[in-house]
C-alpha cells in the first residue's frame, strides 16, 4: 500500500531526475560539447548569443538552438510512414530517460522520520532493467530510418541495428564480472557495497571499465562509433529526414544516453554517491551539529553533489574521447565488437571467477 509521503517522495525524485537530465544536462552537454571541443582544437567556440548583452561564455547558444528548432517547419517527407515517423523520436528519448529510474543518486537518509532512499525504483534486477531498456533505443533508430523513406536513413538504421545489437551482447558480458564480484544485480546494493573505497569497481574491474565504456559509447552511436549517422557517408544517417522539434528529440536522446551511460559508470565503477574513505553514516555523524534532520539533509545534498560531480567528469571524459578519435570504418566496428571486446569480456569473466575462487579478490 503506497502512502502519501512515499508518493510525494517519488514524485519529488522523478521531478529532480527530469530536471537534472532534461533541464540541466541536455543544454549543458550541448554547451560542453561546443566549448570543450573548441578549446581542445585551439578555437574559442560559440560565444555570440547574448541576452541583454550577457553571453555567459556561450551558454545561451543552447537556448538559441532550442528556439530556432522549435520554430522550424515540422517536415514529413513524401512517402514516409507518417505515424511511425512521428513515433520514432519519442521511442528514442523515452528509454534514455527511464533507464535513470534504477540509478541511485544518493544513499538512504532519515528525513523527519521518513526513510528516504535516493533512487526512484530500487529493483532487484536493476542491471538487467538498464540493459533491457537500453536495447529498446534500437527500435527508435530503426523505425526512424525505415519510416523516413530515404536510402541514407535506412542504411544508417541498418548499421545502427547491427552495431547496437553486437555491442549489447558485449556490454552485458562486461558487467557479469562485476555482478559476480558484488553478488547482486541491484544497483542500490552495488553502490552500498562500494562504501569501502577498496571495493570500488574501478579498482578491481579496470579492464571491465574500459570494455564497458567502449561498448557504451558504441551503444550510444557516438564518435568513434558513429557509423549510423556518419555525416560524410550517410548525410545524417537515420535522422536525415527529421527537422525541428523531432530533431531536438533525437539530439536530446543522444545527450541523455551520455548522461545515462555516465551515471551507470559512476554507479558500477566509481561508487555512485560515495566519497572515498567516508561512509554515509560517518558523514551524518560528522554533520551531527546540524541536528538529526539537518545532518541527514546536508549529507543528502553532499551525496547528490558528489554524484553530479562524478557524472560531469565522466561526461567530459566521453566528450574528450569523442573529440580525439576519428570514426571507425563499419567493418572495423563489427570486428572490434565481436572479435576483440566479446572474447576480452569472456576472459575477464573467467579471471574474476578465478580471483573470487582463489580469494585474490575480496569478498564483498
Amino acid at each position, binding site marked *: 500500500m503506497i502512502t502519501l509521503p512515499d508518493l510525494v517522495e517519488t514524485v519529488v525524485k522523478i521531478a529532480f531526475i527530469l530536471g537534472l537530465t532534461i533541464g540541466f544536462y541536455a543544454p549543458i552537454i550541448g554547451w560542453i560539447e561546443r566549448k*570543450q571541443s573548441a*578549446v*581542445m*582544437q*585551439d*578555437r*574559442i567556440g560559440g560565444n555570440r548569443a547574448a541576452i541583454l548583452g550577457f553571453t555567459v561564455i556561450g551558454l545561451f547558444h543552447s537556448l538559441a538552438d532550442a528556439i530556432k528548432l522549435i520554430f522550424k517547419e515540422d517536415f514529413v517527407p513524401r512517402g514516409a510512414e507518417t505515424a511511425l515517423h512521428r513515433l520514432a523520436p519519442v521511442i528514442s528519448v523515452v528509454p534514455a530517460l527511464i533507464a535513470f529510474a534504477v540509478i541511485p543518486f544518493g544513499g538512504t537518509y532519515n528525513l523527519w522520520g521518513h526513510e528516504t532512499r535516493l533512487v526512484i525504483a530500487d529493483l532487484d534486477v536493476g542491471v538487467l532493467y538498464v540493459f533491457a531498456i537500453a536495447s529498446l533505443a534500437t527500435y527508435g533508430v530503426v523505425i526512424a530510418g525505415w519510416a523516413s523513406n530515404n536510402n541514407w536513413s535506412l542504411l544508417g538504421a541498418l548499421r545502427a541495428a547491427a552495431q547496437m545489437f553486437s555491442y549489447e551482447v558485449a556490454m552485458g558480458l562486461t558487467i557479469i564480472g562485476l555482478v559476480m564480484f558484488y553478488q547482486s544485480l541491484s544497483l542500490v546494493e552495488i553502490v552500498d557495497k562500494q562504501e569501502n573505497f577498496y571495493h570500488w569497481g574501478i579498482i578491481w574491474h579496470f579492464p571491465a571499465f*574500459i570494455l564497458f565504456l567502449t561498448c557504451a559509447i558504441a551503444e550510444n552511436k557516438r564518435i568513434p562509433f558513429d557509423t549510423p549517422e556518419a555525416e560524410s557517408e550517410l548525410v545524417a544517417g537515420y535522422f536525415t529526414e527529421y527537422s525541428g522539434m523531432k530533431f531536438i528529440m533525437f539530439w536530446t536522446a543522444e545527450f541523455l544516453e551520455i548522461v545515462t551511460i555516465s551515471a551507470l559508470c559512476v554507479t558500477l565503477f566509481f561508487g555512485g554517491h560515495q566519497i572515498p574513505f567516508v561512509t554515509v553514516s560517518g558523514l551524518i555523524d560528522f554533520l551531527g551539529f546540524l541536528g538529526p534532520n539537518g545532518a541527514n539533509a546536508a549529507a543528502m545534498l553532499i551525496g547528490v553533489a558528489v554524484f553530479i560531480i562524478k557524472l560531469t567528469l565522466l561526461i567530459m571524459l566521453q566528450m*574528450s*574521447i569523442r*573529440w*580525439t*578519435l576519428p570514426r571507425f570504418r563499419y567493418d572495423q566496428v563489427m570486428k*572490434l565488437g565481436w572479435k576483440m571486446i566479446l572474447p576480452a569480456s569472456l576472459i575477464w569473466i573467467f579471471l574474476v571467477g578465478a580471483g573470487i575462487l582463489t580469494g585474490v579478490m575480496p569478498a564483498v
Partner: protein
Amino acid sequence: MAITFKKVDRNAKLTLWEASYVPEILRGMSITMRHFLTNMAGLVMELAGGRKHRKIMTLYYPEEDPVIPPSYRGRPALVRRSDGLEKCVACGLCEVICPPHCISIVGAERENGERYPLTYTLDGSRCIFCGLCEEACPKEAIIMSHDWKNLCEYDRSKMIYSKEQLLYPERNLVRRLEAIRGRYFGIKRYKNN
C-alpha cells in the same frame, strides 16, 4: 622550405601494443587534453588581466583588428607631400603597367614647371592589388597602403576613387614604404612587426 612528404603504409601491421587500442587512445587523448589545459590556462590568465598570449588564434574581428604585416598590399594610395601637394608627376607608368587598366591619369603642369596629375582615377572595382603600379612608380608616389577595410560597396560607381580619395599623408604609409625600400633596394631598416 623544401616540401617534405611522408609515405603512408596503409597495410601497416600494428604491434600488439597498438592493436590493443587503449594505450594509443590515451596517447591521443593526452595530446588533446594538453591543448585543452594550456588553452584553458591561457583563457583564464587573459580573463584575469594577464597578457594576451594564447594558442587560440581566433580573432574577435569587428572588435579586434588583425596585425597587418608591413608587406601587406591594401588599397593603393597617392602620397601627399609635407607641403600638401601630391608626389605624383603624372608620368603615366602606373597607367601603362596596370594589368586591369584601372588607373587613368590626366597630367598638367604647375606654374613652377612641376608636372602633376590634374585627375587621378583608380577604379577600385577593377584593381587586383598586384602592386605593379607601386613597383613601376619612379617617385614612390603611389604606395599600396594598409587599408583593407571598407573596400566593398553595393554600387560600383562608388568604388571609382578620385585623386582626393587616394591622397594619404606620407606618415601613414611609412611601414609599407620601409618594407618596399627594404625589398627593392636592400635597405634593412625595417623589422618585421
